């Protein structure tokens, strides 16, 4: 689905069904250097079970035009513009809040900030593979700026659990590390550093979490080296209405490593 936002062409995958703004909406927000395709299975399930799905390509990522947005705050405002543009959770037309935001890593910060800044239409947020704050060390930021292949290799190595590194993909025939690497390589030069710098600079996440007016779900991988489960636990401690799910053995690439478990946790939270 193509949408124009701020004069730029934006793309959102709708889960294999046409988008229907009259249905409760689930927005899937990918992480750094990724695109909508990381949500393939989960987004299809929601689209075929009574939800209007928008698995977005953030600006400058995947099929969306323009430059990547430089801050989590900008990304949050962009999501709000998207919802407004498609009429999802339009409070003028619907009494109840109907939009669920589901974000992974950088996308989880975007979901949090969007619910904080634009609470009117957000019913709930799910934060997957998250940490607040989400510092990115110079060890990774440096190569992300000057040597993207090296940074991609580092991220790929750190994003998969010991089991995921060997494989055993639930999607038949797919090599998880290869697919993750190629997807990152597909993004435009400069996107990776922009995204990681945005995560690193996001400073008031804990305030946003403490002020969160809607329920939140946090899904963590017990072997996540990028966003450690301890950081997720600290975040959960400040949110008023929170549910936490730990996926045993999963790394940071939770949707790829344990797609069914992620879907089941989202279903239990959203449906």
């Amino acid at each position: 689905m193509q949408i124009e936002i701020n004069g730029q062409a934006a793309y959102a995958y709708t889960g294999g069904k046409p988008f229907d703004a009259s249905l409760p909406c689930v927005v899937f927000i990918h992480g750094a250097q990724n695109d909508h395709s990381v949500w393939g299975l989960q987004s299809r399930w929601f689209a075929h079970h009574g939800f209007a799905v928008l698995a977005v390509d953030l600006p400058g990522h995947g099929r969306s035009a323009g430059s990547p947005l430089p801050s989590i705050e900008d990304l949050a405002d962009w999501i709000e513009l998207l919802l407004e543009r498609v009429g999802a959770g339009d409070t003028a037309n619907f009494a109840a809040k109907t939009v669920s935001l589901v974000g992974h890593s950088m996308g989880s910060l975007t979901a949090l900030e969007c619910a904080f800044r634009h609470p009117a239409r957000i019913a709930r947020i799910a934060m997957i593979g998250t940490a607040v704050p989400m510092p990115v060390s110079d060890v990774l930021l440096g190569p992300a700026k000057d040597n993207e292949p090296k940074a991609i290799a580092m991220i790929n190595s750190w994003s998969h659990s010991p089991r995921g590194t060997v494989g055993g993909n639930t999607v038949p025939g797919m090599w998880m590390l290869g697919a993750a690497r190629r997807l990152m390589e597909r993004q435009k030069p400069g996107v990776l550093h922009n995204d990681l710098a945005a995560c690193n600079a996001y400073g008031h996440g804990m305030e946003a979490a403490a002020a969160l007016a809607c329920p939140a779900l946090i899904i963590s991988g017990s072997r996540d080296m990028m966003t450690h489960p301890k950081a997720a636990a600290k975040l959960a401690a400040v949110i008023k209405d929170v549910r936490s799910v730990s996926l045993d053995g999963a790394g940071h690439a939770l949707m790829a490593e344990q797609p069914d478990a992620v879907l089941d946790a989202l279903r239990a939270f959203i449906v």
Partner: protein
Amino acid sequence: MTYNFDTLALHAGQVPDETFGARATPIYLTTSFVFKDSDQAAALFNMERAGHVYSRISNPTNAVLEERIAALEGGVGAIAVASGQAAMHLAIATLMGAGSHIVASRSLYGGSHNLLDYTLPRFGITTTFVDPRDLDAWRTAIRAETRLLFGETLGNPGLDVLDIPRVAALAHEHGLPLMVDSTFTTPWLMRPFDHGADLIFHSATKFLGGHGVAIGGLLVDGGSFDWDKSGKFPTLTEPYEGFHGMDFSEESTVAAFLLRARREGLRDFGACMSPMTAFQLLQGVETLPLRMERHIANTRQAVAHLVKHEAVAGVGYPELDNHPDHALAQKLLPRGAGSVFSFTLKGGRAAGRKFIEALRVFSHLANVGDAKSLVIHPASTTHFRMSDAALVAAGIHPGTIRLSIGLEDAGDLIEDLNRGLAAAAKA
């Protein structure tokens, strides 16, 4: 952390069985898989959950093999099929239909040549064959309806080394993918995706299996080719009514090709691999690095021996200075240029026959890539109907012998070759 090649050859794609703890890959010799409930069944059919439904489409044993070869090649995924020919057909049928055109190297395995030159035209897909060393010929042959460039990493019979970086660059200039048959080299000798290729297939029957007991093929996707940007592949970029109206490139940024190949090609053409075969091939892949090292070491000794033998008119092996692709082989194949090569006896057909009949260790048969050493004399077998002049035109001398060097003791192999050479000299 990520693992290196030799570790991936043993482990990629398989974690110990969670029910019984089996360390080896279990053989899931079942046609179908029980659904947990109706919702899960519907979700599996609609690609909302991952898993197996029916072994023609996917199977857990096959999936380990697919994942392992994808890991070794540096691709995003793979599909196991009934043979190398089935892999080639699946790739072509996924990419194009009637009215499409392929540009292929003329130095191909006979089965591939037959498919392209005689069979596919009946279905409206035509091929122009070019000298693989002539980049201008590749360029000139590309037409508006061309959808694929194709060659072998090491061509048949002269071991032409495909200049993958240059041919891939040319293909990409025209919005086309390059597919290579990597059977002779295996990912241990070269990983074509690292040089720009987009699709790889293997006859896993050969070196990947290595034992000569199972026929199988593997089709691997590098995941780099941008089907949308090319605009020439509606099978991957437009809704497909045969599968929920799915637009495969929208569905998966990096695996659109594999999705369509599995969801349409395996489903409808049905050239699937048996799980037993997948298990047998996995046993071979586990020792691929060790075997390839030995294949190359033995080949180098055999080549060195034949080059200096008085009964031999010439040896065609890319590591030799006089091979036309010597420099390219040094660049693309630093670990070795395979273990299949041809040499020419000074005598003609009669010498070839005598050579073959005198051998004891080499097996006389029509295959390559076995653990055992193999030999064939084209002029008296695969090409026996051709006159001497026609043979020469095809690049084959009446006294040409093709060897596939195995893993036996190198001294025994050389002694056997000497036995054959002595017999040939008396012909």
